[in-house]
Every structure is written in structure tokens, then in C-alpha cells.
């Protein structure tokens, strides 16, 4: 029997059982997802790990956090269609996942006392082959102090500063990640920087009157 599914009778008869629903969106084969993901991983792993390190303060926690963020990213990627894949802003997307996972972990751990001592903060020293020995030593001392100071910042200031200067995100994308207006991001950043500035020992940093007083 010939049935015209587009006709009213056909629709009535057939809709409940054989309605195919919306046309399925073609998902890329897993092999393509895997290679796209691995490219993403290789491009972004240093940045994401560094951001994780500056959020958590401990290499071990940073590794856990970065690994969890990448695994979640992979699982999401598996459900993306081509269009979503092509328009993806990988850096902002991964940063958003990282910050979410971090927040969730902190919430889960919030009943435990969070004692952060500067001794626990330092990563096993990694040597930048490009830097001279003296420069390296000086730079890392300053950077180490900044690293521990970052951990003293309130969460939102820390997230904003880490995303801006470690993850290298533009203000607008940080605003998306943090779910607040750009102006708020800027104010988080300048408050955060104001606290970090004494450590950076900028010649005239302390005299800045317009940066707002530390909390």
C-alpha cells in the first residue's frame, strides 16, 4: 500500500510509531574527533596545565585538574557536530571547563581546611633552556613569589588574573568564562594586580592611586 507520509492521513497513521524525528545531525567519526582532540591537547596542554598550577598551587593537584578538564573536554567533543567543531574557540572553551572543574573540586573540598603554605607551592623546578642561568634564577625567585601571592588572592581575582596572563585569554572571553561583564573582569584583574604589584617591585607601582585599595 502506498502511503503518503506528508498527507494528513498518513501523518496521523504513521506519526506515533515511525516518526523519524528531526533529521540526525551527522557526527564526525570518532577517529576524526580523536585526532582533533589530540591536536587541541598538544597545542593547549602547557597553557592549561600552567593555569591549573596557578589555581591550585600544587603540581600534583594541577595535573589532576588538567587531566580531568581534558577528559571532560573529550567527552563533550564526542557529541559535537562539524559546525560546532569548526566554530569552537578552544582556548576559551578549555579554560571554562578548567575553571568549572576547579570550582566543583573546591566546593567538594570546602569542608576541609585549605592551608596553603608557600613551601607546598613550588613546582619541581623546570629550566627554560633559553634563559641564562642568572636570569633564570632571578626570574624564578620573583615568579615564585608571585605564584604564591596569586594563591592568596580571592578566587575571582585569581581566576581573572590567571586566565588573562597565564591562559592568555582576551577580556571578552574571560567575561564569558566567568559569566560576568567585561568591566567586572577588568576590575577583578586590576584589584588582583594591585596586590601582586609590591612583589613585582615595579619602580612606581606603589604610587598608583587609581588601582583601588586592596580590599
Amino acid at each position, binding site marked *: 500500500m502506498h502511503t503518503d507520509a506528508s498527507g494528513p492521513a498518513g501523518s496521523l497513521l504513521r506519526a506515533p510509531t515511525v516518526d523519524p524525528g528531526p533529521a540526525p545531525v551527522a557526527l564526525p*567519526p*570518532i*577517529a576524526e*574527533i*580523536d585526532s582533533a*582532540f*589530540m591536536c587541541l*591537547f598538544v597545542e593547549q*596542554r*602547557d*597553557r*592549561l*596545565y*600552567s593555569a591549573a*598550577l*596557578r589555581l591550585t598551587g600544587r*603540581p600534583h593537584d594541577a*595535573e589532576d585538574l*588538567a*587531566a580531568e578538564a*581534558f*577528559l571532560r573536554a*573529550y*567527552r563533550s567533543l*564526542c557529541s559535537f557536530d562539524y559546525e560546532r567543531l569548526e566554530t569552537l574557540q578552544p582556548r576559551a572553551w578549555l579554560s571554562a571547563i578548567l575553571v568549572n572543574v576547579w570550582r566543583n573540586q573546591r566546593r567538594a573540598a570546602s569542608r576541609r581546611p585549605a592551608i596553603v603554605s608557600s613551601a607546598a607551592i613550588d*613546582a619541581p623546578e*623546570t629550566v627554560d633552556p633559553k634563559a641564562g642561568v642568572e636570569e633564570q634564577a632571578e*626570574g*624564578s625567585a*620573583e*615568579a615564585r613569589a*608571585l*605564584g604564591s601571592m*596569586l594563591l592568596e588572592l580571592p578566587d575571582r581575582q585569581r581566576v581573572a*588574573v590567571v586566565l588573562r*596572563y*597565564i591562559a592568555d585569554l582576551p577580556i571578552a572571553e574571560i567575561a564569558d568564562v566567568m559569566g560576568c561583564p567585561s568591566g567586572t573582569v577588568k576590575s577583578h584583574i*586590576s584589584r588582583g*594586580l594591585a596586590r*601582586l*604589584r609590591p612583589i*613585582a617591585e*615595579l619602580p612606581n*607601582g606603589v604610587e*598608583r592611586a*587609581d*588601582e583601588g585599595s586592596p580590599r
Partner: protein
Amino acid sequence: MIEYEDRLLAGILSQLTEAAPPQLTDRIVARWAYVEGPVEDVYVAFTTVGISSVVPASTVGGAEEFAADFSRRFGKPLLPAARQPEGVARALRSGRATDLRFDLGALTPFERAVLGVTLQIPPGELRPYSWVAGRIDRPRAVRAVGTALGHNPVPVLIPCHRVIRSDGHIGQYGFGQAMKRRLLDAEGVDVDLVEGMVRGGAVYVGDASTQVVCMPTCRRARDAATEDRRPFRRLGDALAGGYRLCPECRPVGR
């Protein structure tokens, strides 16, 4: 003015960027290798924790299909391994995988317990589902044991093919009964003999020469000389006849 300061601070902050540790890669991917075995060649997927998936090569269309199934099931990309995980080829040949490490983190504690007990069944031996249930102190969970074994992500290595029904029937296998039979045959288990004893009406099998009574799944029952083998429908009959319970298979019943 803010920009100027941002640049200076940014310069120092940028020193806080570090290379991701090399082990991060293996936290987020699994590796696969093809390993030849005496009965079945297998695809093996493993993480830094241990072996997480084994699939007989004859049951998938190739490495790509295996990888795609794995990624979907485990939520991790699967990359080729530089070399086979240590010990797998040897375990396939010997039928003993007790020294291998497995990554069974995605399973429930019950499933892990079932697989842990099953891993200890030596090659050439059979155990009933009820035996496994008893060994994990869940004697009533026979059906759940069957389900857990049916979902064994690392078959062949964790020998769920050595677990059969208490009545001697070979039972289900994720890759079909034919493969279960082939695996057992290769270990020297005479499946026909076991099934023959059951068809003959035996619920228990006694060895008249040693006066020991066993489950039909027990190696001792199979090893008994044909003329010494005595079928029993009730355990009580064997005991009344002076038989002792086999210490290996520990038969239970009336």
C-alpha cells in the same frame, strides 16, 4: 597607564607558565596493541593503571572499529602503543594473568570482586557461577555474577570462560558459546565430557577409586577413570555411599 603596568607584570606572570608534565598525556589517553594468542588474537587497551579492555580480534572489523568502540565506552581517546603491554602475550599463552595489572576503575565494587575471584581460576579448571557467588560472600547473587561476567571488559585474560553453570551446561559467553568452547578446549577441558556427564543425569560425579564426590565442573571429576566415574543425583546418596566432599570444588546440596 594601566596598560603599561600590565605589560610589566604580565612579563613576570608569564614566567609562571610551565610545560605540562609528560605523564599528563597518559592520564587522558589509553593505548592499544594487537597481541597474538594461541586461540584468539586480541586487541588490548591499557592506561597507566593497567589493562582496561580486551577484545578478540575476530569479533571486530579492525583496529579502527576497536578504537571507536573503546572511545565511546570509556570516554578516552585511544592511541597506538609503542609496544605491547608487558606480560599479556605470556598470559595468553599460559592462561594465567594473575601478575597483570588491570584498570577496572569504571566498574562497580561488586563487578570488581567477581572479576578478582575469577582471575584466580587456574587454566584447565571450571567453576560454577554459584562458586564465584560463594567466594565473594554473596551466595544468592548467582544471576548478578553471570551479568557481571557478561560485562567483563577484559575477557580471556580474566578467564570468565572458565565459569559455567552448576549443572555442567557451558553457559553464556559475550562472544558466543563457540569461542568459550574453543578457549576451554585449548586448555585441555573436555567440554563434551562435562556435558556428557550431565546428560547422563549426573548432578554430582563421584570417583569410586578415591571415594571423592565433585561437581561435574571439577577437574577431579573429569580426571577420574571412566570406569570409576559414578553419577549421583543427590549429594546425600554419595555421602551415604561413603564418599567425601571434594576439597577443590566443595559441592553443596542435598
